[in-house]
């Protein structure tokens, strides 16, 4: 459309202190392979932070624009692809809508700035961009007209930091310290015991643990620890999407009975998504221990871990 009808007005949204604000770089989710390597940069806001800025409406030289009003709104929404065939994500729920009128109907003859300010906006969810699901926040400026409205979006990113020291979803703080112990095996073939120091990790945390080989008749080639992020969305059918965020070799060669292999995995250097739940989808993280034997068979055991973002 814009090819035929050149928009008569430029809308620019400038957030306060945008240049100095922290930015995140998020991989482009587009399916276009060339674009995938590109990254989008977004300014970062936190929960409860005010979002303020200036909207500049620039009218083309010598033109004027009649409008029915200008509105700025702050929107948070969940977008989901309905099916795998469909490339585009559609909003299924808008969980946050804040609006403000910038000016009443009238005529714009020259460029004009409109400051706006949404005070202490509660942002319930982290921004997220996944394969099938997005959680997006944006500032939307709408210039109402008799004909089509002119709309401009400005996306920003939202990170949720959980207040120290209690991580989310844990009522009892002592649970966090409790190590995770698992005892698994294949009868007469393999019997291992593994232990992680805890099940809840902040994104800058270190996973520390050990694996104790009680019985091993496998010819193990190597052993890996991986973190798998699972995105589940949709009601029926459930769309599952696993993506391996970390693959980390922790053992080379075949151990003998009684051997203890240490685990230490720094999470800080990886790009991880905190675990979260939403009406329409959830994101879970799993720690997966994979043993690969000399014939290339893989044996694995996954256990869920909670990842959360913590202020440094």
């Amino acid at each position, binding site marked *: 459309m814009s090819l035929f009808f050149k928009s008569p007005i430029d809308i620019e949204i400038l957030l306060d202190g945008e240049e100095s604000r922290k930015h995140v770089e998020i991989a482009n989710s587009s399916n276009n392979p060339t674009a995938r390597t590109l990254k989008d940069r977004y300014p970062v806001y936190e929960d409860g932070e005010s979002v303020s800025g200036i909207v500049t409406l620039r009218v083309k030289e010598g033109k004027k624009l009649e409008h029915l009003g200008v509105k700025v709104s702050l929107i948070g929404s969940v977008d989901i692809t309905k099916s795998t065939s469909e490339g585009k994500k559609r909003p299924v729920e808008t969980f946050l809508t804040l609006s403000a009128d910038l000016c009443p109907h009238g005529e714009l003859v020259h460029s004009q700035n409109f400051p706006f300010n949404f005070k202490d906006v509660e942002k319930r969810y982290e921004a997220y961009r996944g394969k099938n699901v997005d959680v997006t926040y944006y500032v939307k400026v709408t210039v109402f007209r008799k004909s089509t409205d002119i709309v401009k979006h400005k996306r920003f990113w939202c990170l949720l930091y959980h207040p120290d020291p209690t991580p989310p979803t844990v009522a009892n703080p002592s649970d966090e310290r409790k190590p995770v112990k698992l005892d698994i095996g294949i009868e007469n073939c393999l019997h291992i015991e593994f232990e992680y120091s805890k099940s809840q990790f902040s994104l800058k945390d270190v996973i520390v643990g050990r694996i104790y080989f009680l019985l091993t008749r496998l010819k193990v080639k190597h052993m890996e620890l991986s973190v798998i992020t699972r995105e589940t969305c949709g009601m029926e059918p459930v769309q599952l999407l696993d993506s391996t965020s970390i693959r980390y*070799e922790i053992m080379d060669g*075949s151990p003998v009975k009684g051997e203890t292999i240490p685990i230490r995995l720094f999470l800080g250097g990886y790009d991880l998504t905190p675990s979260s739940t939403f009406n329409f989808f959830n994101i879970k993280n799993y720690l997966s221990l994979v043993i690969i034997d000399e014939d290339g068979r893989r044996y694995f055991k996954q256990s869920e871990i909670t990842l959360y973002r913590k202020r440094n």
Partner: protein
Amino acid sequence: MSYAETIDQAIANCKQQTVLMQRCLTQEKLMDALKHTSIMLTELRNPHLSPKQYYELYILIYDSLSILSTYFVECHTKRHHLADLYELVQYAGNIVPRLYLMITVGSSYLQSADAPREEIFKDMIEMCKGVQNPIRGLFLRYYLSQRTKQFFQADDVEAKKANANFIITNFIEMNKLWVRLQHQGPLREREQRTRERKELKILIGANVVRLSQIVESDFTMYKEEILPQILEQVVQCRDVVSQEYLLDVICQVFPDEFHLGTLAELLATSLKLNPTVPINKVVLTLVERLNGFIDRQENSDSDDLAQKLAAFSIAGENQNLFFVFWKFLNQLSDERPDLSLQELAPVIQGVLKLTLRWYPQNISNVDVLLKFMYEKCQEYGKSIPEEYDYLFNDLLLPQEFKSEPAFFCKILTKCESYEKLLSAQNISLQKHCTNEILDTLTQAEWQISSKLELEKLLSLCGALIEPGVDKPSSPLMLEEEDGLDSDNWSLTPDQEKLAKLTHLCYNKSIDEHSELLLTCRNWYQKSGRNVRYLFPAIICNLWKLIRRCQWKIKRKPERREKLNNTTKQLFKHVSRTINDLYSACGGGCFDLLYKLNLQTAALADQSELGDIAYDFFSQAFTIFEESLSDSRTQFQAIVSMAQTLQKTRNLHVESYYDTLITRCTLHGSKLLKKQDQCRAVYTCSHLWWATEISLLGEEEGVTESFYREGKRVLECLQRSLRVADSIMDNIQSCELMVEILNRCCYYFIHGDENSTHVGVKYINGLIELIKTNLDALKLEISSVSEEHRGSNSDEDRTLIGIDGCYIHQSTLNSVAAVYSKPPSSKTANLESVPIEHFQRTLRYIQDQKDVDSRFKAIVLL
């Protein structure tokens, strides 16, 4: 990231990445440098490399990691903090590159003063557990130990302990990996695995070496902390290669003083080893070390060492060194009854070496050891196979024994078990050992002076003395055999050595010395026919003794009576010995017996014991008459007899001399062959013409008492001439006549014509006779074709010897051959022999004319 397929590619890749890394470092792009390093390190993940190739690669990578490490240290806190880097490298996805990087960073970090030492150490060694592949793990841990070794210089005890613990932990893990390597891969490649493991052993050994550097001279720490841990690991791993190697390393690496102090522990450990580990190796290494300790102790300043010993408070235990080993041996035999002699013997040998070195004069130790071995032999039951011989050989004849004959002799005589052990061996080994023993003693010229000693030695030599079993049992057969090999005097070195033993006997007292000899004789008697090799030596020594008696009589005339008795006694021994020899091997050695008798007779005569001399002479005659049947031997016997008799001086009582010489001449004239008769008789003529023996103070012309009877001399000459004349063979006859002419010249020169009756007239007559005979011979020659003679004359020559043998001298070489029969083909040549001989004799007479005017009367032409 993946590794290259071949080692060459891998090396090329490493080199390239090293260059890239260095370039990045100069541009201060640390992250890129790390990336290149990590690509390089990926090569170390290759599972297809042999240990050698892996090592090659490792060395290359070690060097380039050193470059990186230097950079880390130099730029620490300027451009980065190593603590951050330490975390950063943790993100490497693969464990092997990650750990190499981590150790590189960690060790660089340790160089800065503020580094949390303990944590880094602990973390590094803990994380290394992630590599469970034997080869990769071994090299990684070796890398760890190489990188950290510079940080182990600690002064206080606690730090030292911590360092030692670090190394021990690493060592234990490495050893486990090393052992595990054995069980990798298919079963049929086991041997290859073992080979590969042996190539890698140095990696493990390096840890022990490092420990020894740390522990320095802290014995308490070694004994209480380090050694128990190492030994426990050694025992637990239950792996042959590992146990063998590690114990060896422990023995080699730590100071001798430590081993002295921990001997019991080390030995106890060796008991707990895998049964297939050769214990003897361990013991031998230990013994070598301990002996080396003594050597060094002797070389270096003794005070210094005494101090050292005191410092270790080992000196007390020092005395019990043998006891410790002895206890160990007992335990060994209790706990490991399966141990074969083959393994046990070297152990005992080792301990033997030790005791010889530490307690050089302690015989009871040796005795105990040998007894132990003997008991083991007994337990073994069945006869010990021959391939074990070398074991016992080494045990019975260690180098240490041979080099110290005095001690050796002591062992031989005082140590009962030595004999027992020796006798438990098979005959051939026994013989060999006895030979060696005798050699040693002979070479050292050891004097055996007590009977006890001698008896002991002789009983040791039992194997040599006892006659071989192959002797037929039937006495009838025996006789026959005696006859057959009567001339079979094959050389037997064994017997020769035994005989030499007699020469070693010596005692100042003549009585005791003779007792020694008699003991020898009694023992030798057991050897049956072999006495013929042994008794002559005894007799010879008895002769020496008699001489000694004579000498003593001269020096101490006051004891003459007693010594004379002794001498007589000795002669009786000789006689007895000769008789024994006769009865033991009769036919084999009549000639020998005859000569022994003669010799003894001569000696008796010189000792002024006419009766005894006569007795021996008569013995000789008896043998001659009864047993010497070969005509040549008979002739020789007569000549020897004549020689001996001619020199006697003390036989004139009861006309012994007369009887004997008459008999001798009679026998001579009764010889079978005429030429022998002739020669014997003219030789016997000298018996009536005694000549001076200057040793007895006689002098021609001065001494009046010479026994001379010219008439008998002439008779003899006449008789021989008659015999010569009656010989049919002209050549022989002429030759003999010329010989008689020579005799005549002798008497002519030495005697007055009146007393000898050999005068000018007689000689002239003889010359005339020979001439006539020679003319007849020449006639014979001329009948032979001239050409034939001429062709032969310059080739070979044949001469006739003084005893009638034919000496054939070849022109081709300088060696002359002697025949008893005339060479048949050369008959033609023989004619010249008497002719030439005659010419020579005539020339002699001609020459004598210038000196002696009497000769002028002899007509030559």
